[in-house]
């Protein structure tokens, strides 16, 4: 099939297809398909390495009570830390995004946005160092106070940890880490709110906050939700910061401030994998597969929400 074999239609109707074009277009397409294969490969190889743990008798799996009992507390710990991070980070991120887009002096707004983005550039292991050395000791008084005054809630049942290396501290570290993700996306959608709507609101005598509430927030709502879910996906999979800060390994508990916390899937893998052997490796990979499925579901949902908004605004 070379270019000399002219098709039956008149030549002017169809562009000439040169070999160079075919090779280039083919390799471009192959790269795209390769990426899809990689994603499928991630799932396939994880499954193939996880199968021994799935089929092994329950007493051989580390912990001795089967894979389900091994993974369940880890899933709880993962969700607990990530949801706490999300609850702390989302309102802050929305505030930051509003500040940068509509409140900061215009001359410095771009710089401020860049400074917030720097938070995203710091490697996660450094966040772990900081959480362990600074944040955990600094939060010990709060742990004591929370155990005394909020102890009736099961989240703050205590006894308060004396080191601060608790799920609560981890949640705050994760919140700092996902803050730039949520605020970057929120900033983008807020700045795209239709100028006509904003100016109309101001022209009718709305204050700045009323303008934001009526013209900006309804427009940016789905973008914020999507950004928050992307942050949630990041928090679920965060490894090193949690592995360094959390003193985990205890069973399932909702208690955020005691010294016995459930570990998270990712940090458990990081802590145990280097020394694991045999079925232990398979079990850890099986737990990684669970994490993969959870984050994949969260991310797909998030992308769907964000893209739906993009379609909507593209129609305008």
């Amino acid at each position, binding site marked *: 099939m070379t270019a000399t074999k002219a098709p039956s239609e008149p030549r002017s109707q169809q562009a000439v297809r040169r070999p160079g074009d075919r090779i280039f277009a083919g390799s471009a397409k192959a*790269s795209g398909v390769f990426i899809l294969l990689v994603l499928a490969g991630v799932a396939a190889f994880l499954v193939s390495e996880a199968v021994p743990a799935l089929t092994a008798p329950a007493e051989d799996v580390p912990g001795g009570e089967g894979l389900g009992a091994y993974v369940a507390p880890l899933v709880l710990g993962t969700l607990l830390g990530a949801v706490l991070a999300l609850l702390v980070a989302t309102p802050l991120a929305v505030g930051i995004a509003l500040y940068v887009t509509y409140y900061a002096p215009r001359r410095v707004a771009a710089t401020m946005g860049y400074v917030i983005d720097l938070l995203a550039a710091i490697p996660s292991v450094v966040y772990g160092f900081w959480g362990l050395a600074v944040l955990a000791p600094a939060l010990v008084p709060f742990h004591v106070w929370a155990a005394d005054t909020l102890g009736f809630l099961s989240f703050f049942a205590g006894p308060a940890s004396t080191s601060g290396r608790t799920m609560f501290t981890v949640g705050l570290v994760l919140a700092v880490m996902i803050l730039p993700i949520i605020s970057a996306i929120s900033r983008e959608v807020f700045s795209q709110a239709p100028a006509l709507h904003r100016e109309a609101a101001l022209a009718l005598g709305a204050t700045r906050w009323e303008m934001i509430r009526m013209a900006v927030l309804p427009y940016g709502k789905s973008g914020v939700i999507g950004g928050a879910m992307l942050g949630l996906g990041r928090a679920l999979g965060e*490894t090193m910061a949690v592995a360094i800060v959390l003193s985990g390994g205890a069973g399932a508990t909702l208690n955020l401030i005691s010294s016995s916390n459930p570990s998270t899937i990712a940090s458990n893998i*990081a802590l145990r994998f280097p020394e694991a052997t045999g079925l232990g490796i398979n079990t850890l990979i099986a737990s990684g597969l669970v994490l993969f499925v959870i984050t994949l579901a969260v991310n797909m949902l998030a992308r769907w929400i964000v893209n739906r908004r993009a379609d909507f605004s593209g129609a305008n």
Partner: protein
Amino acid sequence: MSTDTRPAAPAPVQPRGPVRVERRLPRLAPLGLYLAGVALGAGLSALTGSSLSSTVVYGVVLGTLAVFLASRLVEGRRKATDRLVTCLVTTAFGVAMVPLVSLVWTVLDNGLARFDATFFSNSMFRVVGEGGGAYHAILGTLVITALATVISVPIGLMTAIYLVEYATGRLKRAITFFVDVMTGIPSIVAGLFAFALFTLLFGNDVRLGVMGAVALSVLMIPVVVRSCEEVLKLVPNELREASFALGVPKWRTIVKVVLPTAIAGLGTGVTLAVARVVGETAPLLVTVGLITGTNLDPFDGRMATLPVFAYYQLTQPGTDTQAFLDRAWTAALVLIILVMALNVVARLISRFLAPKTGH
């Protein structure tokens, strides 16, 4: 941003006559009230046993309250709510600055102790106490990151070209969607993938530098695709059409016209993608491991990398704990400097390689 309209805070023209005169706080009054509230908060916290955090919390709460109440009394409910939100939003930004400043300060404070020539010229080979350095880890990080870049950039760039120049329909939508989804793969899962892949190929207990590079590529490719795609979309269609009109084949149009036009953006995107993976720890922890000596061959056994080095120095200190902690913090400092340098390079690339306008 240019269409950004913000309400001018003071409306200078006040209508006279039968129109109700709008009562306003003087221009600097909110700021003054806020500072007064902060001062009051500082005094209060000094009375109740002062600490920096309580001073700040009392100050911010009282300052916000002072502004809100004054505005409520003088300007009415709506204006007061507006000022309250202004205070809250500004506070949110301030709160986000606290961890950034604290983190950078802590790393500088602890990391400068061992930021010396030995750290950059010695490895940890046969070092059990003081001395030693991260020479082997820094070079290992550079080798593995370079390898990951060599794998990721051709695939990522070609995919971006495919998406912008060729793809249509369902395959385009599928690739776009799954590239987005791939951005969210946890880094540890990417490491497990590389581990599972190489275990199937080479048997158990294999640890190679190239495994780490593969794991990092899984994280890097989607970032490269997204940034390159955005940049290629910005190349004006007129350039492509002018090239086609001269009879240039499509692939030569892309190579000779589209890519050179976009080179600044492509360089920036790739540099930022490198910056994203250079600090990754978890995937290297499970695939590359750590050694104390210098190994620069990614196809031969374990290698040392800077993030993993920092992690183990902190979490598994030897008998001379302080020496290990010092090395860990210095490694963290070097890591931050590396990432920041890459960010700066990315900005410089976009400034100096930007397409020339006119001749």
